[in-house]
């Protein structure tokens, strides 16, 4: 059952295009993949891995989100009352899993598929299926 009230096709297309443009800019501009798990992971990695550009990318990310938030006057309300028992262990799994699998939605999903990488596509299908099953269990079973 498609929720047409919630569906925001134009924001989705514009936002997605911005994400794609950012990935293109980082690749054409510096030769690096816009994979957030890798960029964030380098921050806690060995000192050799940690470079200024990664911190600046993340800083820019927060800044860009802030600018969009202010310019739009707020597109959505913050979620309230979500279970910390889901949020914290889930986040831990995201951190561990993205390191183990070497990527996330931006690295494997956007960049991987855009580069026509079978590895990226496989990873994306895998985490999508895992996420869908998890949401089904959390929302409709438990």
């Amino acid at each position: 059952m498609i929720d047409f009230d919630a569906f925001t096709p134009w924001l989705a297309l514009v936002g997605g295009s911005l994400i794609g443009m950012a990935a293109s800019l980082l690749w054409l501009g510096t030769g690096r993949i816009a994979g957030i798990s890798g960029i964030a992971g380098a921050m806690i990695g060995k000192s050799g891995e940690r470079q200024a550009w990664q911190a600046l990318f993340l800083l820019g990310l927060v800044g860009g989100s802030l600018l969009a938030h202010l310019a739009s006057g707020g597109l959505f309300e913050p979620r309230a009352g979500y279970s910390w028992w889901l949020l914290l262990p889930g986040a831990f799994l995201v951190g561990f899993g993205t390191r183990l699998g070497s990527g996330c939605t931006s690295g494997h999903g956007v960049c991987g598929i855009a580069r026509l990488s079978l590895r990226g596509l496989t990873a994306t299908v895998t985490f999508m299926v895992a996420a869908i099953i998890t949401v089904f269990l959390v929302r409709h079973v438990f």
Partner: protein
Amino acid sequence: MRNLIALIAGGVFGAGLYVSMMANPEKVLAFLDLAGAWDPSLLLVMGAGVIVAGIGFALSRRMDRAISGETFSTPMNTAIDRRLMAGAALFGIGWGMTGYCPGPGFAALVVNPTEAVGYLAAMLLGMVAFSWLPARRD
């Protein structure tokens, strides 16, 4: 040059995460919840992202070096192995449990700092925990 480009690219990326509403975990979960009231918006987000990024990657094949003068850091690992599958599965479970993936975790700092800080702290802990594992002999 590299640092300036990274900062700007980050800015555009963050704006994209916000505008697309990937930074809104409830919207993400509504997309992942196929059995509920399904919101397909994120399909368009990823579709547009992949197509636009695809243009960038295709253009780069005509270039020797990136604009900054550096060589392209082309990912060398093409293996589809158990590490990839296990890692992707664990990430997917965590994404489904939280509604946030790493990028949106950062973007959400401006909307929901309480959840975002908690999420990022636990995510970083998970990354650190992985780094403590003994190195594999591949």
